[in-house]
């Protein structure tokens, strides 16, 4: 009897057993969670799931395409590399960009044959077409699907200058001396408004169109001339357009004259096929430089004769 009584006293109650089991479970669970929680080591994994894999590279000799240094090199790669990828796929040949440090270097590269095609500026093309073995085949369309662009004169939003006449005694920022915008203003518009370069306080050339706008925004210069497509990027961001040129034939895409006609035809076909009004094409050109966001139109040397006359440049016979 005594032993049974003692056994009954010693026997833990079910609640005590349950409490002990729960406590052990809690501690075990805590340890397991801690181990799992602190296991932060990971194998290499993609950091950005939205990144796209590069397009497959086509086979054959690479066609090198030059771009005048109108923008900083990284911007040129951002906007022009997708065009190279498209041409590589469309023409079945690899296309690659080859940049120059200044406008004229692109012409030199064409002469030397290190590039077979190039995106030139209108003014540079007008100057180069007489003496170099090149021909234009395409020109970009603007947002109205017309093959023109405009040069614009911009000032800061808070600037008192409202017209070209107001530039007297002011500091002017321009892109390359071989850019159309600079030559339009200095060689054409100033004279139309009764001004001479000497009437200005100073004129400074910068490597890129974007730099011109940055300089004006910073207040280092009172006005600047750039392409309309670059000015549109800064719409509502502190600049104001006070003058716009007439329609200018778009910056031409040129090829060396000795380039394989079949390849020229393939390039022309591929780029003229783009019609962003049709479904699917917009996605293609989304990453392209804004100048080419509306496609291309066929171009010939004649399209640029009128401009040559304005600048008193020699017209191609």
């Amino acid at each position: 009897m005594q032993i049974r009584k003692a056994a009954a006293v010693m026997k833990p109650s079910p609640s005590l057993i349950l409490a002990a089991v729960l406590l052990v479970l809690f501690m075990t669970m805590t340890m397991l969670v801690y181990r799992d929680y602190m296991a932060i080591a990971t194998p290499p994994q993609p950091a950005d799931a939205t990144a796209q894999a590069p397009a497959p590279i086509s086979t054959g000799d690479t066609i090198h395409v030059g771009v005048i240094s109108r923008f900083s090199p990284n911007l040129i790669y951002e906007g022009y590399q997708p065009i190279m990828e498209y041409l590589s796929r469309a023409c079945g040949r690899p296309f690659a960009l080859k940049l120059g440090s200044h406008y004229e270097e692109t012409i030199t590269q064409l002469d030397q044959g290190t590039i077979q095609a190039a995106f030139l500026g209108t003014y540079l093309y007008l100057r180069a077409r007489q003496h170099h073995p090149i021909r234009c085949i395409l020109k970009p369309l603007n947002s109205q699907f017309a093959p023109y662009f405009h040069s614009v004169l911009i000032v800061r939003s808070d600037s008192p200058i409202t017209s070209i006449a107001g530039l007297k005694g002011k500091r002017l920022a321009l892109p390359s001396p071989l850019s159309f915008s600079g030559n339009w203003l200095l060689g054409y518009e100033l004279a139309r408004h009764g001004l001479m370069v000497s009437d200005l306080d100073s004129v400074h050339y910068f490597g890129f169109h974007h730099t011109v706008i940055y300089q004006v925004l910073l207040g280092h210069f009172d006005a600047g001339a750039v392409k309309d497509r670059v000015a549109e990027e800064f719409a509502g961001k502190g600049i104001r357009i006070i003058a716009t040129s007439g329609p200018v034939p778009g910056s031409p895409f040129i090829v060396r004259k000795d380039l394989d006609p079949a390849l020229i035809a393939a390039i022309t076909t591929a780029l003229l096929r783009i019609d962003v009004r049709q479904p699917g094409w917009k996605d293609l050109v989304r990453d392209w430089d804004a100048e080419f966001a509306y496609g291309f139109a066929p171009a010939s040397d004649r399209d640029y004769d009128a401009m040559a006359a304005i600048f008193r440049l020699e017209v191609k016979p």
Partner: protein
Amino acid sequence: MRPVRTSLKIRIVLFMGSMIILLMMIISISVLYRWRALILETQRQNALSVTRTFAASILDGLIFMESGLLPNEGYLENQVHSFLGKNPEVKWITIFDSHGQIMARSSFAGAGMAEQAPAAGTGSFSSQAAMQIAYSAGPGWILEISHPLQIHSKNWGSLRMGFDFNATHQRLKRLFIFILGLTIVFATGLLAIIWLFIGRLTRSLRQLVAEMDRFDLEKITPTQMHTGEDEIGMLVNNFEKMKQRLHQSRNQLLDAQRQVYQAEKLASIGRLASGVAHEINNPLHGLKSCLYAIEREPQNLPQLRSYLKLADEGLDHIALIVQKLLGFSRQHAKQTIAMDLNNETEKVLSLLAFRLDKNQIIIERDFARPLPELHADPYLIQEVILNLLLNSMDSMEEGGTIRITTRCDGAVAVRLEIADTGCGIDAKDMDRIFDPFFTTKEEGKGTGLGLSVSLGIIESHGGTITCESRPYRGTTFFITLPLHGSL
């Protein structure tokens, strides 16, 4: 009151505690992992942003160098060291060209990917940035990011940077301890609140249990508990009503029991009737003879005096028998007085004397003398003895012996044994002999209440009654009665 080993309070607290802890653990783990993911993602994004920023500047430099706008010599090394100097969280930087050759690197030889040249086809030159969190003995936890130096499909190589991740690791550890502590504190707090709440609830129940434990049918007292309008209050009120009903039922039961006793007593009297009639008949015959003799010789005065004396004795005898019978049959309220068990036994034997003689039954008395006085109801004790003796007589139709023994059982009780040499009781009936209305006698000869009533009487005096029997050898009843009413 028996102590409860697993109280309602503990069970409720355990159950609710388990549920609460489980729920809190689920919530805490969810929060913990969510927070962890947030911290890791923030750190990853920060590191990725830093890497992207540096990669953009390196890419610009590479493009400028390619375009001839920047001299190649020392540019990348300067960038790497300048960046490391300004960003202490960056442990190392390595820049590979598109062929997997190192173009520039910091002096620190980091863990993991730092010195590994990306092999073609392994995905190292993927357009996607890759990241890895790794631990090595030297620098500890490092977040490594491999970022392609690439614009669209144009690739210049890749940039690899290692970020110190020890602080993040420590932060995660502190977060775990914080959440665990918070969980334990909250769970303990909640359990304490539940414990107190349930304690208040069960205190009322315990009080009620104590009241139930104190409950005595003999003395009905109102329940001393403050009751509210809740379920406990209802329980207390119902307990109070149940007490009243129990008391009422007990009184009814006692009444019924009294009626049963009386019925059994009357039945016993019926069984005594022939004996009593004979007892009365003998003196009556004597009286008649005396009257006849007196009538014949009324002048014989000596004879007259003698017969009158005899008639007087006969009438006294009749009066005594009738007095005994009336005394036995009268309905009494239970009355405890000091009594001698031997005397009460003798009184019963005198009632049965005629039947005993008639049935040729010998009575053997083995009385302890002196026997201590017993505090009991003498009429109820007589009834018990009468029932047992009648049963013994019934079992010995052809005569036999009844041995009656009285003994003092220590200083607290007396024992009475009535042993006969009758037919005995079948073993199969032994368990039922004290059941009401159980009888093995022929119909009309017994009510089946005798032993049941006897058991009730003995138990009401705090005593015990047991039986031993062997078929055809006899039966013995053992009665133990406490001297003062209860053992």
